[in-house]
């Protein structure tokens, strides 16, 4: 029973990772790739770590997995924010389908 829950959680996590990597390859410009990949891959890896927690139960390994989840969330979101900001200052163009850009006046 315990093992079954762990397997299901890990499979869901790998499925989310697949969506994220398809987005990384298919989407047209850098900002959209960053969005899809960051969201899907972060939640997928959190789901895998939850699966580890369910598999080992309360104990040394389980708590390590539980502590890894908030670290993963904070580092992934802050890294995505820094990358987006750096890429804009670097001068990366947005896709031609973009409809709005409020940030340009703020940077100039």
């Amino acid at each position, binding site marked *: 029973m315990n093992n079954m829950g762990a397997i299901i959680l890990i499979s869901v996590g790998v499925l989310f990772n697949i969506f994220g990597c398809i987005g990384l390859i298919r989407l*047209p410009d850098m900002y959209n790739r960053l969005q899809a990949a960051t969201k899907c891959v972060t939640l997928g890896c959190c789901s895998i770590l939850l699966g580890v927690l369910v598999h080992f139960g309360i104990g040394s390994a389980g708590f390590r997995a539980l502590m890894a989840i908030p670290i993963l969330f904070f580092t992934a979101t802050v890294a995505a924010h820094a990358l987006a900001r750096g890429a804009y200052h670097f001068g990366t163009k947005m896709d031609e389908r973009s409809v709005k850009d409020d940030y340009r006046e703020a940077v100039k």
Partner: protein
Amino acid sequence: MRYVTVFILSMIFWLLITFKFTVPNIAAGAIASAITAAIFGRYYFHNVYKFLQPRRWLWFVVYLVTFIWACIKANFDVAYRVLHPAMPIKPGIVKVKTTLRSEFARTLLANSITMTPGTITVDIIGDEMYIHWIYIRSEDPAVYTRMVTGRFEEYIKKFAE
């Protein structure tokens, strides 16, 4: 007082990571936490008495449940946009005003926005957050401010301000 809070938090973190309650382990954790608190203590937690109010913890739990539900919705949103053959995207960067004051609350709000469906925070200048949105649903600033920040802003204001 700030130093003590940082010390206690890093000690809890160490004990959860190692999960071994022997005397040498606890002593090593105490030394490492003391060094951490001495170096980084002055950067964090300007008002530590917030930790002792149970009302804030209640709002924190409400925020956490909302946040996890928004994360799961965000994943299915991304999956729909990625797997759709025509890729229905209409990206752009919008400007959103925030009313939060403290740095910690703003960081939390930016992180929440990054994990909610279709949005990612690019920069914060003064009171304004610049947000890249993968599918702009509305052109009116009042409408999209409410759509982007959602209920996170009021929850964060209740437990972190």
